[in-house]
């Protein structure tokens, strides 16, 4: 019997369940899930170490889920240089590296409350919810092993999610006992991380504080408690006073729940928002008549392009120049990959618009990738339509539209004589099929010397191999769904053939990031 060949590429680190133009997210997830399972079964250590590389929060959460739902038996081949609990260390490290909302989502995957596609995980591992001692410790460690100010903020910002996680980790019986004063159990599970965490627990589960317990360290929690009281009492003036400095979602939640007659615009003005929240809620705030001060210069390049195209589409050109300056600033700041002189063929056809869940994602990723590559001598857009930025300067920006004549782009790129040609495309020619490869072969036969690199910003479950569609037989399509992962992809692609080298590289990375 012929052994099934393992299909793997760095797509396993880059998956986000958002769907694409032609495929829904569950189809894509299935393809990625098979890769995770294959690599897990092939080499658990490699599978775990690999999650130290840059990747999406969702992929890392799913990898952790798989590791935790299959407890270590002690029979695995763990390199001598690694401690037995290296998996736990990596999972914790990855959680701390994520932004809080993503980290909590990943933990909620373990509680079976997150990841709409986890039904597939079910069929393989038999469990959707994972609740063993290791999981319990990881969840409680993440929540309580932090300073009081941090815990205060976390509790106020993510009350609902924390409740679900703690209930999952402790179970209803132990939770009930702890909330009712079982200090031994409290110390065993929570006090070991933070001895003075009881008030937080009581706040999260809406329990009255005992007389001798105070929110001394927890200023935000006590402010929210008072804000809630004002909301229940319908005390609008006090609500207005107390909401200052409270996270917008918390204040908005109380306002909506208790129907406090306060304008949304006041919330945008007086509550606090993260820098990214400001960027994403800028338009919504503007509709209420409030100008949110956004620090464009400190946003990442993908988010900036996203806002740029959104504003152009809705013809809100007021801040366009500022955004454009920020794009230039970030473009210079970004770590660039030097491949020598490069010509880029950029697919601007309709399918680069992406899915409804993640509009324009492939196109935005593609143009963000352009900022990550050094020495681009020529950009050759294929397809697309021009959209005019302003009436005054008439600048034209391409927007995905129509079909793809990628072969023509390849001829133009070859004519430049540049040795590295990068084509960024979803791999659908939408023309005479095979013409790209036909032209590629003609050019090679004619002695044109160039290396073709195909970067595909769209996962494809129907790809014949790996997670992306190829354009030519001998050019591997590199799946890069986030510009930040371009370097990871290039490394992964070159090294995956050599397991020992990859493993050693990752072990070194582990030691550097986590220690012994």
């Amino acid at each position, binding site marked *: 019997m012929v052994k099934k060949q393992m299909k793997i590429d760095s797509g396993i680190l880059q998956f986000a369940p958002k769907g694409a133009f*032609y495929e829904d997210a569950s189809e894509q997830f299935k393809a990625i899930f098979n890769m995770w399972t294959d690599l897990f079964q092939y080499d658990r250590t490699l599978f775990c170490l690999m999650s130290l590389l840059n990747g999406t929060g969702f992929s890392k959460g799913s990898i952790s889920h798989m590791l935790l739902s299959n407890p270590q038996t002690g029979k695995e081949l763990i390199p001598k240089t690694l401690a037995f609990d290296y998996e736990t260390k990596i999972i914790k490290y990855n959680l701390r590296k994520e932004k809080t909302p993503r980290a909590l989502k990943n933990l909620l995957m373990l509680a079976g409350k997150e990841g709409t596609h986890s039904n597939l995980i079910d069929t393989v591992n038999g469990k959707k919810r994972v609740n063993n001692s290791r999981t319990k410790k990881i969840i409680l460690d993440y929540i309580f092993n932090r300073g009081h100010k941090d815990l205060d903020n976390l509790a106020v910002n993510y009350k609902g999610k924390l409740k679900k996680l703690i209930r999952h980790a402790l179970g209803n019986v132990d939770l009930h006992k702890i909330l009712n004063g079982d200090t031994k159990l409290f110390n065993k599970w929570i006090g070991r991380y933070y001895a003075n965490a009881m008030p937080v627990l009581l706040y999260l589960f809406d329990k009255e504080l005992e007389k001798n317990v105070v929110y001394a360290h927890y200023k935000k929690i006590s402010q929210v408690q008072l804000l809630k009281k004002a909301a229940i009492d319908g005390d609008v003036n006090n609500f207005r006073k107390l909401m200052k400095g409270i996270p917008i979602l918390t204040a908005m939640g109380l306002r909506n729940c208790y129907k406090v007659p306060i304008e949304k615009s006041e919330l945008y003005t007086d509550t606090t928002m993260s820098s990214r929240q400001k960027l994403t809620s800028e338009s919504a705030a503007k509709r209420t008549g409030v100008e949110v001060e956004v620090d464009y210069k400190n946003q990442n390049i993908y988010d900036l392009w996203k806002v740029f195209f959104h504003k152009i589409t809705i013809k809100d050109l007021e801040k366009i120049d500022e955004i454009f300056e920020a794009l230039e600033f970030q473009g210079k700041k970004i770590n660039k990959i030097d491949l020598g002189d490069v010509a880029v063929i950029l697919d601007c056809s309709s*399918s680069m618009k992406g899915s409804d869940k993640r509009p324009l994602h492939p196109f935005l990723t593609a143009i963000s990738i352009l900022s990550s590559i050094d020495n681009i001598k020529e950009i050759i857009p294929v397809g697309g339509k021009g959209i005019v930025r302003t009436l005054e300067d008439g600048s034209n920006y391409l927007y995905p539209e129509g079909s793809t004549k990628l072969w023509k782009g390849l*001829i133009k790129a070859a004519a430049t004589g540049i040795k590295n040609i990068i084509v960024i495309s979803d791999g659908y020619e939408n*023309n005479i*099929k095979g013409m790209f490869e036909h032209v590629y072969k003609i050019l090679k036969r004619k002695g044109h010397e160039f290396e073709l690199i195909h970067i595909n910003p769209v996962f494809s479950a*129907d790809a014949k191999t790996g997670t992306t569609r190829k354009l030519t037989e001998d050019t591997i399509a590199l799946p890069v769904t986030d510009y930040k992962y371009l370097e990871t992809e290039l490394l992964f692609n070159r090294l995956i053939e050599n397991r020992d080298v990859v493993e050693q590289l990752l072990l070194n990375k582990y030691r550097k990031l986590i220690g012994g």
Partner: protein
Amino acid sequence: MASIFDLVSFKDIQAEEIQNDDEMIVIPLVGPALGDIEKPSNLVFEKTTGYGKMQFKNIGDKLAIVPSNLMIRGTGAQDHAMSGSGIVVEKTTHVFDNACCIEQSQSGYLKSQNNIEDVLPISLRRSLLSLSLRNHKSYDKLWPDISDWLKGLDIKKTSSAHLNYFYNDKNIKEELEQFAAAFEPVQDQIGAIIFFGKDPVGIEIMSSPEHWNTYWKHLIRGCYGAELLRLKMLNVLQPSTLKLPRVTKDNTLEDITQKIESFSKKLIQEMVDIVKNIQVTNDIRISIDNRKKVEIRLITTKTGGGDIILQESKPVYMSLVL
């Protein structure tokens, strides 16, 4: 008799670059919007009011067109398909009571939500070109043809006349999505001529690029892709590949570009000529609304036919299987 092109006299429509995948070739047709037809998002399938009765609502203020043989598949309800095309006057609800049930032993009525829309495959559309069958108000009228259509296919079930046995098959579903992906709409596209190899199998023209963008997947995936896949599964379609232009060593990059461009143009011309030579054998007016100045005509050719809709005597929609 006249050729199809003479008869319909669509003006300003041009053929664009060929797209192909496997044995399917599509020539996109581009041109200006035709007539004054409601945008597709304002035409809503509401429900089935009984077996064989499909209800649509037009919430816009212009006439809306229900594409020919539109098929609605839901869950826990009897799937349905239109027997032809249809017109729904502005701000009204219309029940088409000559529709077909396409899921023999399933009970329940379709609702407006959670449905998949497609267009019936070519062979079943051909069956409905018979005026008597089309007008016959009997929900089970297409079941014998559906059973025949499924016969011999390597899918889990073929026992009853359930079209979704085919469409819900995991492998088929994936292949059909791939078909659709290879035929992305081009700018200003309002229609397409579809071939299997060099045999024309359909001409579709919608009222505007917006209509095409809404319905192209229904046609490419549900109608033409499905039929092609079935024929391949039955091994009755000869494999054919396009021979790409040859290039010599002395050809410059400009020469190569020109050769490919002229190869493409020649191919388009050859294929359009094939369709131009198709003669209309019959042309019947099957419904007219004098107040709205709109009519539906059923035309037939030697091997097929379909609907043309005219508004103020000008064609605004055509859907023919050949």
